[in-house]
């Protein structure tokens, strides 16, 4: 039987999200689909599962099909997802660190992919604010609509800014770990 849980994690809450999914697995609920605000689980015989999320970015030269094949070959089961992240799980093994990365260098590059993508989607947001707000005419029929739109964009830009800062801090922390 399926179980749907409505839940939202911010982009910087990957650890919490992982923990949430792994706790569901302990109750024998295995993730079968991720929607934007919703996680769908299936009741199954299960042991301990390890979840990992991966951000593929704009893809590069390797197709999505091949990307998933590489992860499946490495022992991961992929979960269909509609929120831009790729979700994988496999059964926990003792004494094996089930990470998606072997070294700091590849982990660092994964962060750079994410930061690069965030910067790219941020550009039109900030451009719109810089361009539209000073040019706003307070009179006129569409003022309220325009104002509402600007407020929405400002809120999104604010969340975007927090995301950038948080992800950048996570990246800094990783780099600090490398040096130690």
């Amino acid at each position: 039987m399926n179980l749907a849980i409505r839940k939202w994690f911010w982009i910087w809450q990957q650890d919490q999200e992982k923990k949430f999914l792994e706790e569901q697995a302990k109750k024998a609920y295995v993730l079968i689909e991720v929607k934007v605000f919703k996680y769908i689980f299936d009741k199954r015989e299960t042991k301990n599962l390890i979840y990992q999320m991966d951000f593929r970015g704009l893809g590069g030269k390797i197709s999505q099909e091949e990307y998933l094949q590489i992860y499946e070959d490495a022992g991961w089961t992929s979960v269909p997802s509609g929120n831009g992240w790729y979700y994988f799980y496999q059964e926990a093994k003792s004494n094996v660190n089930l990470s998606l990365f072997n070294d700091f260098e590849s982990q660092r590059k994964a962060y750079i992919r994410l930061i690069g993508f965030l910067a790219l989607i941020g550009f039109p947001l900030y451009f719109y604010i810089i361009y539209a707000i000073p040019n706003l005419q307070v009179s006129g029929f569409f003022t309220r609509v325009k104002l509402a739109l600007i407020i929405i964009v400002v809120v999104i830009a604010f969340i975007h800014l927090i995301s950038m800062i948080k992800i950048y801090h996570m990246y800094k922390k990783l780099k600090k770990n490398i040096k130690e």
Partner: protein
Amino acid sequence: MNLRIKQFSPLTEATFYILLSLNKPLHGYGIIKKVEALSKGRLTLAAGTLYGALNVLLENKLITLIGEDEHNKRRKLYIITDLGRELIDYELKRLSEMINNGYQEIGVNQ
């Protein structure tokens, strides 16, 4: 020597072994197995590391696509390019210089 290859040096252990294993055509899974064998089980490439490295190697034309597995078309086969081989040669020379200097300075400690 192509000066462009110097920018990739030093290679990470994972990238070095991936490049080395592509002396013969292999797909992703084949690379994982080959690297495991070469390192006698010490190094098991994680999926994200392998994927990231393949992307970078492809973008810089250090490896190239040469076909697909006959049993599973989603598995693409890659092989090292001449430029990739130059890079491996450069790394091998650099590493053996380091090893020789190490032995010379502090001796072999077994």
